[in-house]
């Protein structure tokens, strides 16, 4: 490799190909600090709602029967939400600003009246609350007589990070 046999050429090549990019990296890190990412929703939430009324809704039986906790797994502005005990209804959702929206496909155990329908979950996150909270409604789509059920959720303190 003749080109770099001489130390001067090596130093110039090294400065151009390694030194300059590292300087660029510092610039990127500095400018990136000003970027805003979506609000954090990730974690396990406890939900408070009128479960008695929820159970009377065409598609609310299985939700009301569970402990109504939910787990959110977030990837930027989209997330997956697992309702109930986390093993039954998992649904994708979107987050825009502080508003989140998800459509829950009900379980078969909710009966024939529920088939083809879905539940809408609309909520607003309070970004200043600690622990983080959100409030909103759960409603049955295509059901004019069904009143939306209001709910409030509180995020549980996160488990220790980093453990494999």
């Amino acid at each position, binding site marked *: *490799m*003749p*080109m*770099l*046999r001489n*130390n001067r050429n*090596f130093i110039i*090549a*090294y400065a151009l*190909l*390694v030194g300059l*990019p*590292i300087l*660029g*990296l510092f610039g*990127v*890190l500095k*400018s*990136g*600090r000003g*970027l*805003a*990412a*979506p*609000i*954090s*929703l*990730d974690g396990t939430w406890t939900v408070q709602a009128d479960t008695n009324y929820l159970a009377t809704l065409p598609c609310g039986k299985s939700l009301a029967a569970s402990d109504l906790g939910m787990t959110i*797994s*977030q*990837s*930027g*502005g*989209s997330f*997956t939400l697992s309702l109930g005990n*986390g*093993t039954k209804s998992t649904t*994708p959702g979107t987050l825009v600003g502080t508003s989140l929206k998800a459509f829950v496909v009900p379980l078969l155990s909710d009966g024939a009246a529920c088939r083809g329908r879905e539940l809408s979950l609309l909520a607003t996150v309070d970004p200043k609350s600690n622990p983080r909270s959100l409030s909103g409604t759960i409603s049955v789509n295509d059901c004019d007589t069904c009143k939306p059920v209001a709910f409030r959720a509180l995020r549980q303190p996160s488990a*220790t*990070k*980093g*453990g*494999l």
Partner: protein
Amino acid sequence: MPNLFTLVLQIAVVLAVCRMVGSLFRLIHQPRVVGEMFAGILLGPSFLGWLAPGLSAHLFPPTSLGFVNALSQVGVMIFMFLVGLGINPKELKHHGHAAVLTSHVSITAPFVLAAFLSLYLYPKLSDESVAFTSFALFMGAAMSITAFPVLARILTEKDLLGSRLGTIAIACAAVDDVTGWCILAYIVLLIRSAHSANPLWLTIGGLIGFALFMIYGVRRALRRFQTIYERQGALSENVLAFMLLLVLSSALLTEWLGLHLLFGAFLMGAIMPKEQKFVRYIVDRFETITITLLLPLFFAFTGLRTNIGLVNGPEMWMYAGLIILVATAGKLGGSMVASWLAGMPLREAAGLGTLMNTRGLMELVILNIGLDIKVISPALFSMMVLMALFTTFMTTPVLELICPDRILRAKVATFSGHPPVPSMTFESSDGTAA
């Protein structure tokens, strides 16, 4: 307590699927590890969970995954010890300026490009709980890593370990991995310290003290292993158990100091004596169960965490494409340009870039750490796993295309460089490589 029936069933299924898919990949001239990585994805929500959700839930109930994970982490810990064992920092000294420049560019180019890409991806795939600096540094470290063992395996298969291309690739990959792990250590430290009661300076001080103690104290004592091996031609079970105990202690200490188990295991391997026969002997003792049993569990666990369904819609696929493009341009392009500028013929330089672009299992290890410390989101994790699969899969055919064997073999005969440590191929008789 784990449900033993479920656990054994899971191990059996994982083993069977990994061996089967690995063998199929061997038929298309891919390293078995690529097939096993792919098998992991097949067992997860991306394929089995999508095709037969009932069977998937029965085979891999969420409550049972902790045990699969624990077993797989033991495997990864031993694997990291073996990776450290195979890395010989002295190798780089034999290759002069060209190798130094190539190895450093092959880190900085993908690292800086990944940081630039982070400016675009951070607002879309991360959230406010992750600082941009951590996100960008993690992306950089994840994109600049090279799968040292897979690379060594490919070079062995092509009989290129003694070639100029082979020796420079091995030396550069060793430097890349050590650098990548140091950067990752810093990121893990940064993130974990935010949740730790101890101040950051105390953790850093403790780790530096530990590393110095290992390098200047324990390292000397470890030479005793080699002396025993040279005298007796083998190591007794007690000695091997003691060596394993040292690996576990080192891993536990780094975890206790606030870093991660895997760093301690890697460090213990890195400071072990590097005499070729000794290294080969140790690798032979530890690799069989690790590679045939424990690492497939790691692939399965990774696959179970990978949900390609999260890469949903054209926008998300565009992000995935960008990640693959940037990773390849940075690693392949960076290494190629640097080695070409250093005087390597263009074809050979392209071959080196292709080899350096192999990420394999090392990438999966890093990505799992990133997901655990929540510096990357599940969707980004899935995209990065796709990138690892793609870049590892492309290595063999692209190398054959741009740098055919007949050209490279001619160089083997004329090259008189220092041959690398052959033990790092991690190969079993059937071509397994991690």
